[in-house]
């Protein structure tokens, strides 16, 4: 209850932040966390559709499973957005923007698709979310001078993903 109270105050007034993080100087950035999180969103949408298609009673077991899928979808959509924001805000530099002038628009698109993926159970939106993050991954790896390749994820949903070609 105290936590919820503080959350409400934070939303309204914004408490000071204290960083316990390591991302600023250690230089460890990788879009794979966002890619996997976005893929998880699609997987949850698929599981929700499968559960719905089974029919039958909307009993406790059904409600429990559906609630868990929705919760994980919410969590991972937000996680993907957060991971992209950190890379965009802390890593992307003017020289990267010069080479990839579409990066701001792409990040904004990712934020919008992530929010829509939370608001809806629309598979097309979730797939677009994955696609946009893949495009961001290509830009990211290009800034590192690392070539990329596209391959299907070796698990469901087997969507095409961008991987560094090391």
């Amino acid at each position: 209850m105290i936590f919820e109270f503080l959350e409400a105050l934070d939303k309204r007034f914004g408490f000071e932040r204290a960083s316990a993080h390591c991302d600023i100087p250690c230089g460890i950035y990788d879009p794979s966390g966002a890619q996997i999180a976005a893929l998880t969103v699609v997987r949850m949408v698929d599981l929700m559709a499968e559960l719905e298609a089974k029919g039958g009673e909307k009993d406790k077991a059904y409600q429990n499973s559906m609630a868990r899928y929705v919760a994980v979808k919410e969590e991972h959509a937000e996680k993907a957005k957060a991971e992209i924001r950190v890379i965009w805000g802390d890593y992307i530099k003017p020289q990267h923007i010069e080479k990839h002038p579409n990066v701001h628009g792409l990040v904004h698109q990712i934020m919008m698709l992530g929010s829509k993926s939370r608001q809806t159970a629309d598979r097309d939106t979730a797939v677009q979310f994955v696609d946009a993050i893949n495009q961001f991954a290509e830009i990211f790896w290009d800034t590192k001078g690392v070539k990329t390749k596209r391959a299907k994820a070796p698990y469901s949903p087997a969507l095409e993903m961008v991987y560094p070609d090391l």
Partner: protein
Amino acid sequence: MLRVIKVTGESLSPEYQEGDYVVVTTIPFFLNRIRVGDIIVFQQSPYGTMIKRVEQVLQEGKQYFVIGAHPQSVDSRQFGPVSKEALIGKLIWHIPKPSK
């Protein structure tokens, strides 16, 4: 006197996680009595406001060697001891984010 601060990052995880709140005291009486193991909030250029655990108290309480729990934590191992002047507060209450 008291400040509420939200934790970002994971260097003090699993005890202190991203999204947790902490209440710190800024009362000099407590700031003059920083001990090993205390969690402190301080200003560290160029990182801004940071939160870490005190591993050593140096120079008769004028400096603190701070560390995070995470192997990739950025702390005194990189930026050296934190001076007392940079100290913002000492943690007195931890309000963790509820687990799902």
